[in-house]
């Protein structure tokens, strides 16, 4: 018999209850407190999946999030989650899980044929496929793409919610093992606002199941008492919550599993929650990860980390095997051997690579009292096959030996978890003797304590952590208490040596470093021989550490191998970057509520519901939504837009322009401020009059455009484009508060205070006259005040369409009544509503520039034919920058019109002599003539202002469209502006 089994007693599971679950179609049972891994191990399952490349069978290596091999798909339907570690999936009733990377079954996998061709597909083999004839790549590509990817994505929409939540604290403690608990207690007792994040479902970390005594009580009792006290002190205790990223300014992202992968959610529907925790100080107590030993076939099911074997025993009451042999280079495996023997599990031998005099005599004696211990012995090869190990061949100075075993528990020493420390910009020191990097030089508010700082002894961890907790509290305004730290009086037994080099004679091609991606020592050697000497190149060439576990158990071994090949110390070889997230996370967790309809916020104009009643196609304009057209039965968007544009040219149309930027500038120095913000003159504007204006950036290029209106001697209304509204708000604030803070002026952003409705067309005046009480329709570029439907309104006469036109401004919360009255009056004049598409057709024909089109951040006033409007007195933002030599370049892109000599002009077309020739410009907007035949467009063309009459090709290969065009003046409709006048 071989494989794991449940022991009759022990573990932190609830044996009074039974949970039923399925794995690969078979039914199993477990208990609350189990993980999927522990429950399957207890049921005798040894093989959990297949490796990525060679499809070799894989069992459990670890018991935590570092597990590289036992990946499963969990859940069903839209809740299915691939690549979930069986060791980090807590059991629930009804769990359905499946193994991965096998077909048709785990036992019989077609992909295992890759093992036969392994010599032909070493590290980087697919890069070499690029070296052959291109035609062959077509063949390779199909095969490689078919084999790529691990696990399968869900095919149905995820029914659950993912929440994003902000949180703040004085002290964040990451990890609730002995060090984390000690630090949290110290900080909380000192009055700090403390948060404690623990990835497990319970606090205690490595202390769970440990027979240690702390403060004179069993460790489990101390954990429980600590948790009670922390909660009483108001500490935010987050379990099943993993710190996945440490960002600038001590922002730590915490991923909380509200329910286990694949499980149904509670009433709130939340599956996972992302905490964005901003902390004053961060105490990192993430512990350490055990690393394996290098020997042949060390990837076989049954090769496990020593600490994991102990965890399955103490935490879950599971014996990982019936006959266990341990191979180690550290003290930690002795603790496992002693615990196994005390639990009645047969330990064949403990093999220590160290010599006997390097091992604590007391530890050696205590272990030898229970099982055979051989020193100076190193593992050479795992015996057995795809179903699991059957023994271990080992080598010693005096010869070879072999042991029968169904589990080989290995310990190559502990590696501190420095991931978050490094993400926070910290540095590392190299400890050659122990073969570890330890954190140093923190750049932010982080401090590492306990095992993640390389302090593996329990007494040290508790006292260091206590001090760190007091210091963190003091640094954030707390008053450190005088209490003494938790006390552990036992001995640490925490020595280890570097054990990166396999025993002599071991074939490196059979020694696995990264068992998920099937990277061997031989692959690393090959990469080095082929010139990949940088640790970053080695990683990418071999895929070492690129699996879902991100090399938690393998990176240091790979680094040591590179250092050995290079003949340099490990620190000189360097490290790959520690990037978030620390563990794989679902995409839903990152998206939060920003999914589906809520992917971006929706800004509604005050008239949104009036538009929505027509169910129009919407145009996204930033966060805004504006109707593109109001379609009638049988109309397409294009025909509706043309009908609406013709309506504006012949009768009257109204449209919602509430999204325009609007600013009220008032005070004795209002004109002065505007003459600094705007590049045109303002101060000479008469009260009641308005004019077109535009603004420059500090680099002299055009920023935005709009209109400016003098409402009173010391009060102006400035409008800008929808897209430029926020940018203009910033510019005005900058000029007012930074450049000219002494001006006696106020500048209020009234974009959302005013709704704005444009009324355009030959009968627009009639509409205004019929609807607006108390004023006559103002003449072009003048304004008036009146009342519509009882609502006071401001009416300005300005045109974007090229027709006689007005804009009616009303307080946004009263705009509906105004809109209704104007719409009815327009209808009475045979007019109606028009949308953005018609607006665009009309402005193209009129030749008005648009922000985002012709004002594209690269054009100057001269490029846009606006130079005559520049304020001759200067003093405006961007004035001096216009004198830069580049502004006089004759090849600048300049604003022109283009008229088609054939068919439609595609927007975005390149302007070229012939296809393939140099690009001379591009079409920024195009449309058809509204009342006449033909197609026209606006464009930016090199030296365009001097090129009227040139003929070019407007060519759009992406739209497979082209049209011969002639360059012309950019005004196609009413060049004299006669239609503005009554």
């Amino acid at each position, binding site marked *: 018999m071989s494989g794991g089994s449940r022991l009759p007693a022990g573990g932190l599971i609830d044996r009074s209850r039974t949970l039923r679950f399925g794995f690969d179609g078979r039914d199993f049972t477990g208990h609350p407190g189990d993980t999927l891994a522990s429950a399957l191990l207890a049921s005798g399952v040894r093989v959990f999946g297949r490796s990525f490349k060679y499809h070799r069978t894989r069992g459990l290596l670890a018991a935590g999030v570092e597990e590289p091999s036992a990946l499963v798909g969990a859940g069903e339907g839209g809740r299915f989650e691939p690549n979930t570690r069986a060791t980090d999936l807590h059991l629930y009733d009804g769990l359905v899980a499946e193994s991965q990377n096998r077909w048709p079954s785990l036992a019989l996998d077609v992909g295992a044929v890759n093992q036969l061709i392994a010599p032909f597909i070493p590290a980087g083999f697919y890069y070499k496929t690029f070296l052959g004839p291109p035609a062959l790549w077509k063949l390779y590509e199909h095969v490689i793409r078919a084999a790529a990817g691990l696990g399968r994505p869900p095919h149905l929409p995820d029914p659950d919610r993912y*929440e*994003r*939540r*902000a*949180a*703040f604290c004085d002290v964040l403690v990451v990890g609730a093992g002995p060090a984390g608990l000690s630090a949290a207690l110290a900080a909380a007792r000192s009055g700090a606002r403390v948060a404690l994040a623990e990835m497990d479902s319970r606090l205690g970390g490595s202390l769970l199941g440990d027979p240690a005594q702390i403060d004179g009580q069993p460790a489990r009792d101390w954990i429980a008492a600590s948790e009670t006290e922390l*909660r009483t002190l108001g500490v*935010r*205790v*987050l*379990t*099943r*919550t993993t710190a996945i990223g440490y960002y600038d300014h001590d922002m730590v992202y915490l991923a*909380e599993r*509200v329910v286990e992968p694949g499980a149904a959610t*509670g*009433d*709130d529907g939340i599956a996972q*929650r992302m905490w964005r925790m*901003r902390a004053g100080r961060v105490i990192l107590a993430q512990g350490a990860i055990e690393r394996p030993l290098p020997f042949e076939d060390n990837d076989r099911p049954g090769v496990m980390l020593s600490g994991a074997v102990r965890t399955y025993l103490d935490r879950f009451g599971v014996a990982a095997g019936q006959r266990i042999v341990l191979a180690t280079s550290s003290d930690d495996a002795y603790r496992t051997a002693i615990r196994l023997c005390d639990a009645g599990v047969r330990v064949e031998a403990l093999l220590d690579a160290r010599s006997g005099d390097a091992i604590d005599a007391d530890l050696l004696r205590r272990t030898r009292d229970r099982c055979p211990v051989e020193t100076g012995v190193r593992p050479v090869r795992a015996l057995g096959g795809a179903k699991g190990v059957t023994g271990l061949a080992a080598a010693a100075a005096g010869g070879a030996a072999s042991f029968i075993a169904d589990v080989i528990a290995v310990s190559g020493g502990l590696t501190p978890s420095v991931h978050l420390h490094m993400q926070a910009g910290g540095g590392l020191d190299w400890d050659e003797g122990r073969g570890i990097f330890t954190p140093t030089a923190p750049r932010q508010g982080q401090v590492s304590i306990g095992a993640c700082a390389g302090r593996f002894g329990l007494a040290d961890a508790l006292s260091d952590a206590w001090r760190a907790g007091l210091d963190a509290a003091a640094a954030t305004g707390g008053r450190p208490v005088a209490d003494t730290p938790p006390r552990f009086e036992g001995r640490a037994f925490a020595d280890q040596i570097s054990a990166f080099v396999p025993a002599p004679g071991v074939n490196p091609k059979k020694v696995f470093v990264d068992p998920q991606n099937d990277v061997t020592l031989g692959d690393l050697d090959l990469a080095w021989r082929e010139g990949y000497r940088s640790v970053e190149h080695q990683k990418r060439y071999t895929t070492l550490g690129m699996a879902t576990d991100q090399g938690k158990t393998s990176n240091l071994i790979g680094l040591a191998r590179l250092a050995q090949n290079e003949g340099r110390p490990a620190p000189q070889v360097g490290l790959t970057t520690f990037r978030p997230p620390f563990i794989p996370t679902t995409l839903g967790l990152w998206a*939060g*509520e920003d999914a589906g309809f*809520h992917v*971006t*916020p*929706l*800004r*509604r*104009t*005050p008239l949104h519901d009036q538009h929505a009643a027509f169910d129009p196609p919407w145009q996204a304009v930033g*966060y*805004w939504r504006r109707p593109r057209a109001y379609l009638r039965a049988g109309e397409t968007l294009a025909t509706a837009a043309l009908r609406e544009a013709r309506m504006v040219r012949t009768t009257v149309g109204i449209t919602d322009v509430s999204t325009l930027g609007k600013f*009220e500038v*008032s*005070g*004795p120095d209002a004109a002065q401020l505007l003459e600094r913000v705007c590049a045109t003159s303002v101060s000479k504007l008469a009260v009641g009059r308005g004019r077109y204006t535009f603004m420059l950036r500090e680099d002299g290029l055009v920023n935005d455009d709009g209109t400016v209106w003098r409402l009173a001697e010391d009060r102006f209304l400035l409008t800008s484009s929808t897209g430029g509204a926020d940018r203009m708000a910033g510019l005005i604030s900058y000029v007012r*508060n930074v450049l000219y803070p*002494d*001006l*006696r*002026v*106020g*500048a*209020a*952003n*009234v*974009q*959302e*205070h*005013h*709704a704005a409705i444009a009324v355009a067309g030959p009968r627009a005046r009639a509409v205004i006259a019929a609807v607006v009480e108390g004023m006559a329709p103002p003449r072009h570029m003048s304004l008036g005040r009146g009342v519509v439907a009882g609502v006071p309104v401001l009416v300005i006469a300005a045109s974007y369409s090229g027709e006689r036109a007005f804009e009616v401004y009303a*307080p*946004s*919360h*009263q*705009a509906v009544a105004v809109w209704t009255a104007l719409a009815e009056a327009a209808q009475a004049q045979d007019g109606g509503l028009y949308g953005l598409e018609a607006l665009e057709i009309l402005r193209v024909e009129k030749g008005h520039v648009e922000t985002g089109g012709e004002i594209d951040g690269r054009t100057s006033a001269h490029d846009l034919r606006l130079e005559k409007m520049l304020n001759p007195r200067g003093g405006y933002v961007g004035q001096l920058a216009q004198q830069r030599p580049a502004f006089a370049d004759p090849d600048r892109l300049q604003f022109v019109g283009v008229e088609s000599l054939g068919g439609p002009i595609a927007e975005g077309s390149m302007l070229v002599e012939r296809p393939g020739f140099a690009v001379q410009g591009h079409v920024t907007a195009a449309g058809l003539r509204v009342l006449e035949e033909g197609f026209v467009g606006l464009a930016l063309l090199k030296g365009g202002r001097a090129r009227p009459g040139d003929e070019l090709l407007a060519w759009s290969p992406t739209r497979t469209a082209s049209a011969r065009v002639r360059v012309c003046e950019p005004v196609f409709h009413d060049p004299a502006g006669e239609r503005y006048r009554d």
Partner: protein
Amino acid sequence: MIRRESAIVTDPVTLSEPQPTRLVRIEAFALDPAFAEAFEGAVGAPLPAVGRVTDAPAGPVIWAEPRAVLASGDAAALSAALSGVAAVSDVSGAWRRIDLTGPGWRERLMIDGLFDAESPGFAPGCVAATLLRHAPVMLCPTGRDGVLICVAPSFAADLRAALAR
């Protein structure tokens, strides 16, 4: 509702949206004693300190920017009273009020929020300008169990729906 252990406690909240009132933005030409005196005389309350709200007869006066506050009142009257020391603009349509009440209001503001609404220091008399569910808002605690949220009208519907979820 209490979820796993003590990590998450979601207490009920209620939302209400009062009718818009007359709201003005007052921007001082200079923060000097002359303005402070004129302001108190016109508004009936002292100028609020940075990040604070004061109570005036017509309603709360909310600090908004280094030189600007929001107050309730008639724009023309206030403009006349503050002539020469401040600019007054009618912004009645520029802000929508949402009253969020109930013991869970602080926690509700942390969901997709950025500001530390759970800080005990964030109490009545404070105002914070921040983003909530992507929307620019001003938050003014009104008591132990409530907060006034001022939001641009264009964002109001989405924000209200999100807060009600």
